[in-house]
């Protein structure tokens, strides 16, 4: 007996070829390229060196390096990553580790089994890219990567095909996978993550407001196109002057930096007065803080949130995923209750020994004006007269920053205006505080959403007037009315950097931008924001109002099963294209059988037609002609379309009688 030979299809039996290596290196470079921009340069260089080493080994047909060398490189890599990131268990360091391991895996890859493992690693690296961005562009690029990686997988199972054929097969497979993926995406029972503690750096790199403000904080944000949140209003949208989205309120000043200080909880009692009531929903981008942004003055609270004593809506948990909440706000409304003495006192504290000129000015005012209300009007009037310049590139300020801004440079950004105004009011003995948040937003006429970007971060002031409560004063708007009415782009001197998305553009560009943003918004809402709640909402909309995971699983399995059966049926049907001539002949035989002349299995067409012709003498000529035509079409050397059409016609019109 001959011993059973090695299984030629088993991947562990087949050695990796140069072509396989080309596929794998290409895929790895594809999926690692976005990471290369985030990791330190030496890591990219190390990965490239490892790839180059493997390619060199393959080209020169040398032996692969020994395990000990690879372990050495791995340990060195881990050490270097540990030193660079101070941990090897974080998100960024984990990805760095994967990049090194992918190179090392290539260097110990001998058979197709190892090569397939590298393919799986590539799939996993695609996933790691989504930790940083999940935009539409990323999705498109990563789908392309997916086609390439699947092409590599296909190439391993049929080594003799062209790469183009492999890519086509991969594309076809992925196209067939899309309906299954869509069903799984919609119906797979969602669990709200996270399942366990996240690495420390899981949410780093998110831009947004902070709970401190020092010169430069907001102007840094002002060049960011990143979206802070979107809002959809039921009914008419507010005017630009009403679009003050309240964020952290800053009380404590140390001469340079404003801070929020401790927050207290307060009852969300009725909001009184106000010009207009707005109902809207907000889709908030993750910003890693527990702040929910709402128009001033918030009159409702979303679930799992609370109201701080300074009127900010706070979420119980940090916002780490895009979330959607409904809000009601009353523009110009006031919440009842007098501010406590303690808070009033806190809102007049100034650090000693800073800004002597400002203090002197305020004290002069204090001598002539007794009333808080009058003091406020006087200060606003003074501000308006001073001809300040609003700029994103303010000159650097020294120790007495408010003095220098108010009396020397007179050029600044909203943080300078608000900070200076609050210092001025406090020096004059009027309780005041800085409010940060966003001002404005761009209305998209296509889907009705108002988009608020980080660049619209703003700081304004609130002054406590005994009879009226806290009154909003926007010193920037007072000095530069255009900032609020026509947006930032028109307020800053030309030549200042303005984010691309904020510029006033040509109409076509604007419409393209609106389309794109509407698409992005829908993507965010329905693809990226598809969570447990959205799933429930969607299922309720299609008629399954209380589907638990069992119903979901049943629906899921049924639908996927049906898709697979349909796919199988379609595939098998395409496998055999029945010969049209044969089909016509069988149809003809069926007609004769119905009339009582059945063809015996052994009977050839000529014998059968002769017998049938005897039986039906009045159509004998037709029967014999069909038989002859069938023979010539089926067994003849050339098949003419005209003859086929003739056969079709005569079979269709044939009536044995």
């Amino acid at each position, binding site marked *: 007996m001959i011993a059973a030979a090695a299984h030629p299809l088993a991947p562990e039996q087949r050695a990796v070829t140069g072509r396989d290596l080309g596929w794998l290196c290409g895929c790895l470079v594809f999926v690692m390229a976005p990471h290369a921009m985030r990791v330190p340069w030496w890591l990219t260089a190390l990965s490239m060196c490892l790839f180059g080493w493997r390619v060199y080994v393959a080209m020169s047909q040398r032996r692969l390096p020994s395990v000990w060398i690879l372990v050495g490189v791995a340990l060195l890599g881990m050490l270097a990553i540990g030193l660079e990131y101070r941990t090897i268990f974080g998100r960024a360091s984990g990805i760095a580790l994967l990049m090194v391991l992918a190179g090392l895996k290539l260097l110990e890859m001998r058979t197709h089994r190892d090569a397939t493992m590298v393919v799986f690693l590539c799939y996993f690296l695609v996933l790691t890219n*989504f930790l940083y961005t999940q935009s539409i562009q990323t999705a498109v690029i990563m789908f392309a990567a*997916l086609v390439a990686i699947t092409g590599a997988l296909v190439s391993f199972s049929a080594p003799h095909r062209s790469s183009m054929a492999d890519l086509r*097969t991969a594309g076809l*497979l992925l196209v067939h996978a899309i309906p299954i993926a869509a069903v799984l995406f919609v119906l797979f029972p969602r669990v709200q993550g996270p*399942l366990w503690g996240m690495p420390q750096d899981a949410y780093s790199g998110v831009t947004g407001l902070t709970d401190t403000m020092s010169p430069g904080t907001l102007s840094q944000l002002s060049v960011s196109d990143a979206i802070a949140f979107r809002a959809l209003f039921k009914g008419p949208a507010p005017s630009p002057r009403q679009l003050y989205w309240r964020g952290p309120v800053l009380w404590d000043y140390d001469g340079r930096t404003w801070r929020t200080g401790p927050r207290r909880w307060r009852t969300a009692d009725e909001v009184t007065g106000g010009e207009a009531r707005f109902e809207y929903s907000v889709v908030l981008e993750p910003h890693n803080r527990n702040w929910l942004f709402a128009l001033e003055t918030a009159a409702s609270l979303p679930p799992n949130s609370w109201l701080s004593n300074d009127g900010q809506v706070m979420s119980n948990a940090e916002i780490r995923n895009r979330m959607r909440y409904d809000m009601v706000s009353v523009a110009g409304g006031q919440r009842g209750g007098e501010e406590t003495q303690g808070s009033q006192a806190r809102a007049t504290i100034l650090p000693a020994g800073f800004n002597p000129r400002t203090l002197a000015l305020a004290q002069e005012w204090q001598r002539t004006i007794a009333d808080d209300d009058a003091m406020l009007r006087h200060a606003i009037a003074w501000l308006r007269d001073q001809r300040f310049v609003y700029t994103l590139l303010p000159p650097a300020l020294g120790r007495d920053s408010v003095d220098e801004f108010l009396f020397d440079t007179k050029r600044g950004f909203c943080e300078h205006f608000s900070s200076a105004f609050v210092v001025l009011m406090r020096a004059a003995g009027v309780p005041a505080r800085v409010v940060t948040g966003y001002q404005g937003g761009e209305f998209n006429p296509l889907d009705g959403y108002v988009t608020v970007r980080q660049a619209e971060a703003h700081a304004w002031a609130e002054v406590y007037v005994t009879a009226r409560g806290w009154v909003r004063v926007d010193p920037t708007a007072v000095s530069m009315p255009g900032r609020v009415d026509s947006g930032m782009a028109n307020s800053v001197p030309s030549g200042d950097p303005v984010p691309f998305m904020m510029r006033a553009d040509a109409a076509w560009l604007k419409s393209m931008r609106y389309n794109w943003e509407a698409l992005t918004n829908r993507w965010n809402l329905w693809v*990226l924001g598809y969570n447990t709640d959205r799933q429930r909402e969607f299922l309720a909309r299609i008629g399954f109002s209380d589907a638990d995971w069992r119903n979901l699983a049943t629906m899921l399995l049924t639908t996927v099963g049906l898709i697979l059966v349909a796919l199988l049926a379609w595939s098998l049907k395409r496998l055999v294209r029945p010969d049209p001539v044969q089909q016509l002949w069988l149809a003809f035989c069926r007609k004769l059988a119905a009339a009582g002349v059945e063809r015996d299995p052994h009977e050839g067409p000529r014998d059968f037609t002769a017998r049938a012709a005897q039986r039906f003498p009045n159509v004998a000529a037709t029967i014999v002609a069909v038989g002859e035509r069938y023979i010539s079409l089926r067994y003849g050397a050339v098949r003419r379309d005209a003859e086929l059409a003739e056969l079709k016609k005569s079979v269709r019109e044939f009536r044995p009688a």
Partner: protein
Amino acid sequence: MAAQLTAGGTRRSRLGTWFYGRRTVEHGPITLGHRRVYIMPTRIGMMFAATLAIMLVGSINYVLSLGFMLTFLLAGLALAGMVHTVRNLARLVVVSGRAEPVFAGESAQFRLFVENPAPWVRPAVMVRHDASGAQTVDDIPASATADVILPVHAARRGWLDLGRVSLETRFPIGLFRAWSHVQPDFRCLVYPRPEKAPLPPSSPDASFGSRQAATQGTDDFSSLRTYQPADSPRHVAWKAVARTDDMLTKQFTGDASAELILDWALIPGALDLEAKLSRLTGWVLACEAAGLRYGLRMPGVNIPAAHGDMHRTACLTALALFEPAAAPAAG
């Protein structure tokens, strides 16, 4: 003929019989309908499932919607790949070709045709002979036929049934293995293993004067006659053919007198049946090579003396299929 199922006494093959059904030998072209294509994930497929599980947990933990999308797309890829793997094998048609007779100890070349009715290539289809492990991997071209030769060791004389053949593929993604078994009505004749032995000195009732003379006489060319289909190509006068374009056969002297009957009784009775048949086979080959006229006499078999390929085939077939039961205590 009896269906030669390989199902023996072992548990594994009994399980196989239960699973695949007691499929007997099939006649004519065998179409691999999708119902007889089996599919299971490979070890690589299992690892893929594990990778997907990790990716799913990662997506849940980091709340990555696109991570879910990717994981589900890959799950869909695996399921679609399963259908494509079945499709790569389904509706192939296996047709038996010809297997030339061989001598025991040689390897029988079973030629199968695998026909692909679909208008696209079926890449990487393995055809494997289950009992011997003989296998080939082939791409079967679109709407065409690939021929596959399975070399199977012929251990014993008689009919060698091909037995069960499996077709297997892992194309396109290698995560699944689809296979199907066929057992075509296909057998190869195995002649007894020839034994090199000197030709017998004489025969009791054969009237040949001098074997020695006859042997020499074969080399003496006497004349040419017109070729007849039964003539051995070795005796065709190729030089004459080249000159005249007529097929001519060389005739040798001493034909009539040098006649040898290879008789069962000439072999010592001490030898066992197979050894006897081996010796007779050796004699047949030697006679044919020497150009002698020879006959074969065995219990129940009597082939009169003749000469040529057809005669040789007839003798060897008789030897291959000789049934001792038909022989009433020979010797």
